[in-house]
């Protein structure tokens, strides 16, 4: 078992003819992900890496029975792509694109919910269930099949943590990069709930950062509902207030969203918080 994606995942790539879309399609295929096609308006009928390209997600779903899509479409069109996927019946939509206007994401997210689908991202590296399916831009070779569930707001910091886990012999059930924007789809609480229910996940590593109060809400959720051991790491302890640290969502505004508040809330909920990423395997 795992969460969100597995052997039954049938993936299409929206924006498959673009540079990033094409590059990562090849990587995902090489990893063993069941990529069944892609879309690019006006390029229907062609192929990319041996995969059929469709003009619309509707045609792609009809022909390939895809249930999951990953989006590499430029920021100004990406929210529309999210809505198209949801309307065409895709159940899991993973949006890699960075820089989408927030009000567009708000609207697209609402529409995805309306259609009964789920959204991961935007501005995320995607997710992986080792040896089964990798959706996004994560480097597949650092992951190892196992029983630690990983959830994170970051990309390379997740790789750093996973690298330590794998080196310590601790494989992962599923690792999810949730995205660095202020408004993203599935978040700490949603993913924690899925890991808690997943019999193959025995322990959880959550990686948060400054900005917002989702980690505090996650701490409260863990205290009430999570029986599995949780270890956390929070980035941005040395970040100054009022400055956006790379991710659009990583900003301490009006004195709230600090790393110290998040760490205190997590520790109060019994979560062990690592001082540096390398310490995580020891705390598990």
């Amino acid at each position, binding site marked *: 078992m795992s969460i969100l994606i597995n052997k039954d995942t049938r993936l299409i790539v929206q924006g498959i003819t673009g540079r990033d879309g094409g590059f990562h399609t090849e990587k995902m295929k090489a990893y063993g992900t069941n990529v069944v096609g892609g879309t690019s308006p006006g390029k229907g009928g062609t192929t990319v890496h041996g995969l059929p390209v469709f003009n619309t997600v509707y045609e792609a779903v009809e022909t390939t029975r895809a249930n999951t899509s990953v989006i590499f479409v430029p920021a100004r069109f990406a929210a529309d792509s999210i809505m198209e996927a949801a309307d065409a019946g895709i159940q899991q939509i993973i949006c890699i694109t960075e820089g989408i206007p927030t009000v567009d994401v708000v609207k697209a997210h609402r529409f995805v919910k309306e259609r009964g689908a789920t959204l991961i991202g935007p501005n995320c590296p995607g997710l992986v269930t080792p040896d089964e399916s990798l959706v996004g831009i994560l480097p597949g070779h650092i992951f190892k099949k196992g029983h630690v569930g990983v959830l994170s707001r970051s990309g390379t910091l997740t790789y750093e943590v996973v690298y330590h886990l794998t080196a310590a012999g601790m494989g992962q059930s599923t690792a999810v990069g949730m995205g660095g924007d202020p408004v993203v789809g599935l978040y700490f609480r949603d993913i924690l709930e899925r890991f808690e229910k997943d019999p193959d996940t025995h322990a959880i590593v959550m990686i948060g950062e400054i900005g917002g109060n*989702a980690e505090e809400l996650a701490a409260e959720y863990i205290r009430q509902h999570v029986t599995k051991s949780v270890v956390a790491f929070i*980035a941005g302890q*040395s970040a100054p207030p009022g400055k956006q640290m790379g991710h659009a969502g990583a900003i301490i505004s009006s004195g709230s969203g600090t790393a110290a508040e998040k760490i205190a809330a997590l520790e109060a909920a019994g979560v062990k918080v690592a001082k540096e990423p390398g310490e995580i395997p020891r705390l598990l």
Partner: protein
Amino acid sequence: MKIHEYQAKKFFSDFGIPVEKYKLCMSSSEAVNAWNEFQKEKVVVKAQVLTGGRGKAGGVKLAKSEAEVKAYAQSILGMDIKGYTVEKVIVSEAVNIESEYYVSFVIDRNTKSVLLMMSPDGGMDIEAVAKYTPDRIYKFSIDPLIGLPDYLARKYAFSMFSEIGQVNQFAAILQNLYRLFIEKDASLTEINPLVRTTEGNLIAIDAKMTFDDNALFRHPDVVALFEPTAEEKVETEAKEKGFSYVHLGGEIGCMVNGAGLAMATMDMIKLYGGSPANFLDIGGSSNPQKVINAMKLLLNDKQVKVVLINIFGGITRCDDVAKGLITAFEELNTTVPVVVRLTGTNEKEGREMLKGTLLLSAETMSEATQLAVKITQQPLKV
């Protein structure tokens, strides 16, 4: 992106939100002209700076004569408010305030929607109201698929007012403020305070707006209002090169791929007793030109004593990264010591290539950080 009160008030007027009469003034003589033009008993002279706390700093004054207007404008212009020099003031008609309210629309991360916040306790620090009397703040999530139709605007207005004339005025303000938020891709539109005058009119006597940086591409009118500080200029230039950069003022320059890892690197420098000079995310790839540009940016900061490069080679292989670094440093010819930490695919090959160069190589983040901190404490000749 932030804008001034007078600029936000222009947007307010354009979107049908009532504001008092005001004039932008760059000098005390212009302020006096405004006084003469208004022909009122009292006016307010307000500093226009891109930070809060103007009132507390003495940047907002009520003036009742030409002499007072002149004196206040003189004292406020040139004043320093939280590191910002006041270069402009507005002179605005003072209205007869009966009561003050708070209204804003803001992006709410938790409900993933635009949130309407209102309070009958306007004119105060809204964070303090939220903290000490949270029941005095009313919050409503706006469904983006229907927005704010009349019946909802009226419903929310009735929670603040009971007299129908004011309910209608307030409902219109809510709808216009929301429309402004959406059409201009704001991340905040705030009126604090919205006042009810003794004549029974609702007027926004302050206006605050911030904008979503991700959406600036479709709002050239907003971009035109950007007044970057010296620091923001450097950050904007870095952004044009594909970097996220924030100056922090310490001694260890950092170059990292990925925002989360970059923050974690800064944190670790602090943990081991050093001080990070900056946050710098160079993004996914690490081709030589990018490294050269990033190094130039770091070395412009004369406080930097050592540079720490922390690269997690995911899709990009470490030997390619090493090759890029070597090419970059052949061109750069710097005397500042550089610690490189490479982890990921082909890391051994990558580290092997760095041997014999001036670049100090480390295997783990903590090893690299400790080495960099040590160099700042006892400068090393390389």
